[in-house]
């Protein structure tokens, strides 16, 4: 006996509406692929390029609590703003965040949030701003673990010589995002 999609959806919506979830998540289709998007009552807590929930759920449960459930409604504002961003209609995200990071990570992510649309900065610059001029590599690690890529624009952080260096979601996506924002010229495949 299988549960009908209507019955399933009704429960998921009721659970979210009753405020019983630690984390609500859903998948979002974007030009850079299917993303897993998750929020808590406090705000956006995860965007992942790995849309396989199995791997993400454990880590979400560990950080935010075991009541993790797929529910479309709580992530609607995020979905809408991502759509607008990819349509080129939005240059800043207006979303509360729930990151649960501390110390150096927090410092760096706070500074990252201020890097404007269509511009780039370097790992070294962010390190210097946090008064740790030699910590460019550590900044790279923080970028790699950015819990909410795109919204916190780690794609805008490049190497000192202007090379893209690396990206948690793959260099191709970094290039795609920077091209969308007009920060780099589209690369022609010869």
């Amino acid at each position, binding site marked *: *006996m299988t*549960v009908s999609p209507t019955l399933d959806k009704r*429960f998921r919506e009721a659970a979210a509406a*009753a405020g*019983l979830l630690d984390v609500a998540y859903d998948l979002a289709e974007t030009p850079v692929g299917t993303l897993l998007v998750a929020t808590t009552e406090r705000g956006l807590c995860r965007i992942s390029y790995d849309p396989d929930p199995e791997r993400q*759920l454990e880590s979400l449960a560990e950080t935010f609590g075991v009541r*993790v*459930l797929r529910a479309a409604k709580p992530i609607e504002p995020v979905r809408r703003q991502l759509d607008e961003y990819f349509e080129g209609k939005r240059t800043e995200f207006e979303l509360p965040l729930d990151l649960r990071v501390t110390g150096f990570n927090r410092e760096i992510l706070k500074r990252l949030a201020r890097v404007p649309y269509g511009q780039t900065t370097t790992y070294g610059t962010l390190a210097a701003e946090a008064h740790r001029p030699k910590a460019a590599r550590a900044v790279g690690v923080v970028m790699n673990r950015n819990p909410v890529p795109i919204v916190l624009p780690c794609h805008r952080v490049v190497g000192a010589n202007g090379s893209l260096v690396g990206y948690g979601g793959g260099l191709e996506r970094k290039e795609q995002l920077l091209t969308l924002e007009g920060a780099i010229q589209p690369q022609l495949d010869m």
Partner: protein
Amino acid sequence: MQVPPFESFYEENRDAVLRELRRLLGREAEDAYQETFLRALRGYGRLRNADNLRAWVLTIARRVAADHYRRREAKPEPPEPQRDSRPAYAELGELADELPRKERAAVVLRYGYDLSYAAIGAALGSSEDAARQAASSGVRRLRRRMQ
């Protein structure tokens, strides 16, 4: 064993829960389904280990089904539709108008409202037996009058 994320637990147990509720409640299973998992969700954060999660959620389902039964019992059955547009008690009321007060009340309550003799007794401040006697002597009197 560690408690898994609720999503995994839900996916694993939802079919079994619905099956159990259908067995217990038939068509009302769908309302109880949502209630069962909402209750499970309320308690889920406090679980300390993941042993017997299936048994745990089926226990919740059975409790929810029991609550549904109780509510169903408390609700009176809807009356049968009448062929005459006038409700039965209105017709009976007129017929029984000339009966002695207690007999009239017993007849109307028994045959018009379908109350039990115990309930009629309670309403009239007398016993179940007295209510039964009042109703049957009222009916006898009516029969004699209609002949």
